[in-house]
């Protein structure tokens, strides 16, 4: 954690209730200047509400938003140096592309000449030159998206908020827009706060990810940290496809896993604790049943070709089914030996 002046935005003890329904609960994190931060969470996790509070469209019940060291909690949206790209773009239907982008500049009283220059500049950034006089209702989803981004960045905000901005696009266009957004982020050098429910999108685009679930922050970390070291059971389930098996922690760096005592890093736990072992499908080792080197025995339920690997499901003697990715095919019904390297056994608790 850096000093507080390193942060352009700090969210402090933020809670939001709509009547008796609690949407955000004691949310706290900081965003560094120039970062690409993603707020990731399933629908209903409160991520859009959090973004609306940062943008000034919603007031928190408790807590504050600090912008560049100043408390802006009670500052209305129109005064904040923050602009938003809305989920369904929210382009003004009665204005053409040029007038839509000019709206924020007109509000600020920027003169016509400068308006024209800045609009030409952002149209170039989003690749929409020549579309000035188009009716926004006649543009495709991807084009509307670009106009919405142009309309926001033309105001030179210090922070750009993007609310599920890519969700309405088809897969291919979405991938392309992800790359373009990253490029724009580098080019503009401003802070991006991106909201999505898509973990792949979050992992591929962000410097840091804030994972929200039921209004609570589950983990704040870089994509690789989130992928390799999920903070709790929810995170282990949420990120990637993992084998998650309930275990008992034993004395002396050992755990009781699938009916066997094996070595593992148990530093964060006490003997007697219940925890969960998180094992990636590609980290499960598999061999012939005759081999004595692996601690567990199981029977192959299925083995399917998936392009670069075979996805094999093995049922252990204790009844658990393990998902395994290896480059060898196993015939259904064969007995196999199963093992996991000590370093590939990662333990999480039920709570953070």
């Amino acid at each position: 954690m850096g000093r507080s002046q390193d942060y352009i935005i700090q969210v402090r003890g933020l809670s939001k209730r709509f009547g008796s329904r609690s949407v955000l609960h004691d949310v706290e994190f900081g965003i560094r200047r120039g970062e690409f931060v993603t707020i990731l969470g399933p629908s209903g996790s409160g991520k859009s509400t959090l973004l609306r509070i940062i943008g000034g469209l919603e007031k928190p019940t408790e807590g504050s938003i600090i912008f560049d060291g100043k408390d802006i909690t009670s500052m209305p949206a129109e005064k904040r140096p923050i602009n938003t790209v809305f989920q369904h773009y929210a382009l003004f239907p009665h204005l053409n592309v040029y007038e839509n982008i000019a709206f924020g500049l007109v509000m600020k009283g920027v003169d016509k000449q400068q308006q024209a220059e800045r609009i030409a500049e952002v149209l170039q950034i989003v690749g929409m030159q020549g579309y000035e006089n188009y009716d926004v209702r006649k543009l495709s989803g991807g084009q509307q998206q670009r106009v919405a981004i142009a309309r926001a960045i033309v105001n030179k905000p210090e922070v750009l908020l993007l609310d599920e901005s890519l969700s309405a696009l088809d897969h291919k266009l979405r991938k392309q827009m992800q790359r373009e957004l990253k490029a724009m982020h580098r080019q503009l050098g401003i802070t991006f706060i991106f909201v999505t429910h898509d973990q792949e999108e979050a992992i591929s685009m962000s410097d840091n990810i804030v994972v929200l679930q039921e209004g609570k922050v589950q983990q704040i970390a870089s994509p690789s940290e989130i992928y390799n070291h999920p903070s709790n059971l929810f995170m282990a389930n949420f990120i990637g496809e993992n084998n998650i098996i309930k275990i008992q922690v034993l004395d002396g760096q050992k755990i009781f896993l699938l009916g066997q005592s094996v070595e593992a890093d148990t530093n964060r736990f006490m003997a007697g604790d219940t925890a969960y072992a998180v094992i990636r499908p590609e980290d499960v080792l598999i061999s012939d049943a005759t081999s004595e080197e692996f601690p567990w025995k199981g029977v192959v339920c299925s083995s399917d070709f998936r392009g670069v690997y075979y996805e094999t499901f093995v049922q252990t003697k204790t009844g658990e089914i393990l998902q395994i990715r290896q480059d060898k095919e196993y015939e259904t019904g064969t007995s196999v030996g199963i093992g996991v390297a000590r370093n590939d056994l990662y333990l999480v608790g039920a709570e953070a």
Partner: protein
Amino acid sequence: MRRLSTFVAPYAIFMVILVILPLVIMAQYAVFDKEGQFTLHFLLSFTNEEILNTFIYSIGVAMETTILCILLGYPIAYILSRKEMGFPAHLITFFILPMGVNMLLNTFALVAVLDVLHIPLGTTALVIGMVYNFLPFMVQPLYNSLCKIDSNLIEAAYDLGASKITAFFKIVVPVSIPGIVSGVMMVFMPTISTFAISELLTMNKVKLFGSVVQASIGSDMLNYGAALSIVMLLVVVITQVLLKDR
């Protein structure tokens, strides 16, 4: 295609018998006198001063009614359409309920109310009565078009630096123009031809164009009444054409 045209037939018959035929008959009455002689006398009589004044006065009342209906109807339609203001959705029913009651009954009821409030019958009472009767016809289309405005649009305006008032006039009002146009059509056009309301609320002192038409037809001056109706119809058609262009 053949089957589709079969469905169109009843409407075509309806159009011919109930719209085109009456118009042709009316036009015929307008250009012939009682003896069956062709004459433009009735149509031209529109230009005599008394009729022209009544006509202009009627248009004035219709415009006044329409403007008052917009000024009164727009705020209430806007407030009820914004879900975030937290008014129950069915509250709108109370505002458009009078639409379901016969206009004559509404007006009789209003006479009683005006009496209680000591407002004399006359031109003020006439405008009150017109607005009272036609306000629901303005509120309904306005409400429908305002409901369709995504609250994200208004929030986007705030986000881009617009104050609440600027967002209202720069975004809400322009986007709701289709609703204003249909509201105007629903109010302005029928108010030109109304006659019962003016009779009841001014004790027949103020003559509107509709009243003149009604009086001439009632006193066996069919040709004259038909000619005036044609003029009125032209005004309605012109209004419609002008508004449709928007």
